[in-house]
């Protein structure tokens, strides 16, 4: 058995162990821990990038294919950037830094398993590994009531949705007699749609919907994003969500391809609800983390629009958007981190006059927000164009119009942030702020990435569409 398809998972596990050992051996080893972490994630990225290939192990339950390749790159990028913004921004006691870094890696490991597995039980193990680690991360500021509350809320709702998902998967097993996605796909197309399978689709959607913060399963999102340490919010909002979408692609677009008539209208409705609720509730928000929480709910809605497209086109649009969204949302959260470190505030009103105070920081926020709104020449524009094109190809004109109008709705509250930063005069004397070097580096990397994916996305798009053409052939 070749180790190649596992290389990234093994390397991540090794790094996790190294971090834990360093934590035990070195006293006050915060710098050392993060040094290991960052060097390690750069190495992980290299491994992830060069381990592209097509392989199946464990009798086809665990695969390395294009979809898992892209997803793992997104996971590693997300984990690395989150680490970089965590090291200076984390307001927890120094002795917890080791545990924190290890949990980040454990969560990433779980997601890697999730995106690589083609079998229900392996899927579920990956999902739970990542979820349990995330519960711990959300509650890591033990002395902060909000953080504890976030952890508990996340745990309770997460456990509930895992239960629903597991129930749905058990029905799938009962009605198809197998847990392998390939076999399920075959069984579904042979048997056609029955009441049991239809029920299982609903349960699976409810379970996955939690990860994706799909309305009406989104209620945990704002509280967790606000309460959890900001880097953790960033991590949950991009990496966990991306993994969830890849999971949904495997399950719905691939295994349940012949149940499309059941889940496609459900997802179209969920997309409309998710975008609209996310955007409408984002408008009155006063806290920037809650604003980003609702904005990320609506982003999930746009991504769901891609699901209704034809599998190959839709999947490539979803993957491309996930890449853009990861960079963009990390950039937005990094600005929030930089700001709250300097001022101790997450209130939007305190952003007044930021453009006079820290022009570059404000500019980075503008680019991130406008990319989320889908304004050219930023990555979000190309991404949304791609997603909407996927839906339009199937003739979903109404959905595209609703989604495009929703983008305008979101532009409204992003512009309200712009107004505070650029038009409103600062309430307090404008003192220049100090932004930690790693945060600045992350902002630079993500902003360059946002522009790159907006102006020259061609090569990335070609690779992604090749991949999805291979995974979803003739569909």
């Amino acid at each position, binding site marked *: 058995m070749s180790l190649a398809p596992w290389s990234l998972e093994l390397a991540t596990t090794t790094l996790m162990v190294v971090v834990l050992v360093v934590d035990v051996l070195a006293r006050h080893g915060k710098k050392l821990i993060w040094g290991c972490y960052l060097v390690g994630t750069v190495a992980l990225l290299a491994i992830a990038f060069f381990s592209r290939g097509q392989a199946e192990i464990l009798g086809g339950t665990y695969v390395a294919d294009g979809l898992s390749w892209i997803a793992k790159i997104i996971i590693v990028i997300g984990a690395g950037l989150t680490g970089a913004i965590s090291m200076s921004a984390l307001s927890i006691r120094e002795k917890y830094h080791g545990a924190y870094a290890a949990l980040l890696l454990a969560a990433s490991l779980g997601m890697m398993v999730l995106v690589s597995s083609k079998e229900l039980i392996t899927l579920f193990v990956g999902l739970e590994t990542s979820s349990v680690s995330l519960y711990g991360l959300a509650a890591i500021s033990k002395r902060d009531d909000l953080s504890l509350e976030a952890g508990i809320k996340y745990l309770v709702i997460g456990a509930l949705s895992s239960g629903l998902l597991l129930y749905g998967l058990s029905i799938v097993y009962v009605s198809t007699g197998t847990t392998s996605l390939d076999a399920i796909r075959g069984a579904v197309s042979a048997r056609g749609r029955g009441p049991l399978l239809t029920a299982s689709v609903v349960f699976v959607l409810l379970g996955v919907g939690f990860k994706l913060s799909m309305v009406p399963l989104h209620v945990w999102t704002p509280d967790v994003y606000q309460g959890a340490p900001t880097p953790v919010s960033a991590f949950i909002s991009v990496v966990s969500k991306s993994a969830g979408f890849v999971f949904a692609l495997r399950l719905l677009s691939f295994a349940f391809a012949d149940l499309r008539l059941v889940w496609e209208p459900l997802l179209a409705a969920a997309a409309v609800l998710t975008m609209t609720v996310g955007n409408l509730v984002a408008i009155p928000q006063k806290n920037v983390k809650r604003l980003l929480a609702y904005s990320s709910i609506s982003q999930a809605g746009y991504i769901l629009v891609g699901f209704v497209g034809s599998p190959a086109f839709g999947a*490539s649009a979803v993957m491309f958007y996930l890449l853009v969204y990861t960079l963009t949302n990390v950039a937005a959260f990094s600005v929030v981190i930089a700001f709250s470190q300097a001022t101790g505030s997450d209130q939007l009103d305190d952003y007044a006059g930021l*453009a006079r105070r820290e022009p570059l920081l404000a500019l980075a926020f503008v680019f991130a927000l*406008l990319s989320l709104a889908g*304004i*050219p*020449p930023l990555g979000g*524009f*190309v991404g949304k*164009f*791609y997603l*909407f*094109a996927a839906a*339009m*190809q199937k003739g979903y*004109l109404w959905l*595209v*119009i609703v989604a*495009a*109008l929703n*983008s*305008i709705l979101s*532009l*409204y509250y992003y*512009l309200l942030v*712009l*107004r505070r930063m*650029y*038009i409103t005069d600062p309430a307090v004397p404008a003192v220049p702020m100090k932004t930690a070097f790693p945060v600045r580096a992350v902002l630079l990397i993500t902003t360059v990435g946002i522009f790159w994916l907006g102006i020259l*996305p*061609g090569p990335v*798009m*070609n690779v992604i*569409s090749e991949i999805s053409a291979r995974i979803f052939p003739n569909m």
Partner: protein
Amino acid sequence: MTFPLLTTMYGLPLLAVLVIFFVPERRALAIKIVSLTASAAALGLAVWLFFAYDRGVGGLQFVERVPWLGVLGVNYFVGANGVNVMLLLLTGVIITAGVLASWDVTYRPKEFFILLLTLTTGVFGVFMAYNLFLFFLFYEVSVLPMYLLIGIWGTGKKEYAAMKLTLYLMAGSALILAGLLGLYFASGKGSFDFDILSTAAYDPLFQRVFFPILFVGFGTLAALWPFHTWSPDGHSSAPTAVSMLHAGVLMKLGAYGCLLVPITLLPGGARFWLPSVAFLSVINIVYGSLSAVAQRDLKYIVAYSSVSHMGIVMLGLASMNEIALNGAVLQMFSHGIMTGLFFGLVGMIYGRSHTRMVNEQGGLAARTPALAAFFVLTGLTSLGLPGLSGFPAELSVFLGAFRAYPVVTVICVTGIVFTAFYVLRVVQRLFFGRQFLAHPASAQSTTLGFGDANRIELTALSLLMLFILAVGLYPLPFTTLIGTAVAPIAAKLGGM
């Protein structure tokens, strides 16, 4: 490889944006000089393009086409036909005059010129893009900077106006996006290139459904009634150069979009829907000019006059025959320059008297003879006096429109009477009669204590006036140029 003239044209303001980004804010003069150099150079290229364009050959010239996003069938594809040449020239003129008119901006000049030139980049891009993805990209780039330009440097209820304008126009662009994607898939050609899309045969039902989606999307920016309400608020709150650019160029962008995409690509839909558009444009013309009569604020008067004049453009587009289309494009050019002059003059008057109310000042001509002379000429252009650019443009539109919709056209012509009324009344009150200036705060009449236009202002005004006179006195080179581009469209529409 030939010199990429068109790319350079929008590349210059973009380059200036990057340069200004690295100039410290306190060196305001350097920032302004960079802006002026870039816009004047772009204008130079536009003038050169005007003369270099081969009228005998017609069609798209100076084409640059490079593959860009293969998956979606997107090429980097720019080119210019007769209409583009005119509109690029208009953009160059207005931005150069606009930078000159903003010479006295002292509040946050760096951000101001960065945003102004970003906007210009987008506008130049729209007027040359022949791939609809690229077109849409530039379109959005040219709309968004407006929010901050009005929000930061505007006057009055600026934040409301800025938000309203931005959301209206972006809602329009949401429709455009849906429409463009519809065209892409309905054509079945897998390309966003305009020339490829225009060879596709679209189903008649598809044409009837998508024509209004696209037309309303673009029409919002052209202030088509009832989607025009952003325009008076936006234009009157914006700083001088932004009003000039917005009313002068951006509204043309909407009309140009209507002409390029729905009318040219969906002729079947056009024949079905354009009579209704003609009806809406009557409302634009008559309602716009009547509203202008009712206003007391100079900027509101000019803004409503824009709504009315854009109605003439829309009427021309709706008439579907060559002479009306030609007039519509010429009217875009003429109105762009004219409204640029108007907003520039209003800004200059406001800079001196600190009020924009017509009834709070009078007899300004004694102090500012040059401003008065320019204002009178602009006003006369607006009411269509022969010898000035408004005359040939409006005449062709009405001639063409009369063939298509005689009754409608007769009603529209009454708009000219109202225009004459409000223009002459403003001229009379503002510049002639008793000299006085009533400060809104003190309500006391004081004598005027300011001078005439300075050299920079005169340069800006003369530059604009030059084109009004050129088109007015010798329209032939302009109309033949436009004719090369609109004749094929008229043939496709089959109008009389």
